[in-house]
């Protein structure tokens, strides 16, 4: 696994984009800004859905209506997150790919994204003003925690030293 990652990292360092990102100091903070905004939109959307699931706020709309409003928004934000994240990996492949914190972050992104997709299907069936079942409330809260861990891991990549 490590050899494979090292080979991938070395290959990415041959990319022209990698050289550009190393030489032009503004590219990394600019792409990081896009990356942070994207995770912000994903996180806030999950938080709003969790608060609606718990019947705390946004009760003028059914869970299905909130889902229709936020799911596509979350999907596009996730796409931006993946593209900007890939660009950041090309910029500094060794620091990201070889870091265990980064690897944990990728697992968390995949797991939380799948849970969010599952919840979207469940909430999409709730067209009335009722409070979602406890299982759905718990799932929504778990997704919020998942994105919190993703954000935490993202910041800790910068500080982790093996």
């Amino acid at each position, binding site marked *: 696994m490590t050899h494979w990652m090292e080979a991938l990292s070395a290959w990415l360092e041959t990319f022209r984009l990698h050289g550009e990102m190393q030489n032009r100091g503004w590219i990394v903070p600019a792409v990081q800004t896009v990356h942070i905004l994207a995770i912000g*939109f994903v996180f*806030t959307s999950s938080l*709003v859905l969790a608060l609606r699931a718990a019947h705390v*706020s946004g009760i*003028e709309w059914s869970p299905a209506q909130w889902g229709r409003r936020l799911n596509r928004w979350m999907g596009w934000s996730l796409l931006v997150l993946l593209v900007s994240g890939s660009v950041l990996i090309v910029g500094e492949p060794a620091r990201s790919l070889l870091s265990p914190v980064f690897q944990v972050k990728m697992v968390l992104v995949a797991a939380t994204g799948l849970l969010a997709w599952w919840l979207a299907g469940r909430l999409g069936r709730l067209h009335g003003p009722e409070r979602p079942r406890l299982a759905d409330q718990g799932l929504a809260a778990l997704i919020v925690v998942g994105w919190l861990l993703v*954000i935490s891991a993202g*910041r800790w990549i*910068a*500080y982790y030293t093996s």
Partner: protein
Amino acid sequence: MLARFLDAVHESAIGTLVRENGSVFPWLEVAHVVAITTVVGSIVIVDLRLLGLASTTYPVSRLTKSMLPLTWTAFALALVTGALMVSGQPATYFGNFAFRMKMLMLLAAGMNMVVFHLLTMRGLPLWDRDAPVPAAAKAAGIMSIFIWISIVALGRWIGFTMAPF
């Protein structure tokens, strides 16, 4: 006067802890990023409603009422964590151009919000639901999106123009 205050903050127990403990600053940064992105995310949901681009069947008054507690709680957390991050080396932050611009943009965000709530929202019952949003409210929405994206960008720029601790 300001220099003496910044020096006192720098020498305080909290300032010393943030500066000298290797894990305090990263955790403060995590909390700050979570808070600021929640502020931006919740504000943009309302801004897009003002611009007529999303949530158009949701009354503006109810949407702001739903989002404001989230926005203010996150803003309070951003303020506290931001102040703690600065306490480690306050003079360096105050000397940083990106930091000063970020503070200026926060002021602009506050002014935009005050004008929106005190003036533009006066006529809210006329356009709260099923009616076009007036140009002043749309302008406030565009300004807000621009200002908050700038705040995130400047925050990132601070990280690239000075060492965290």
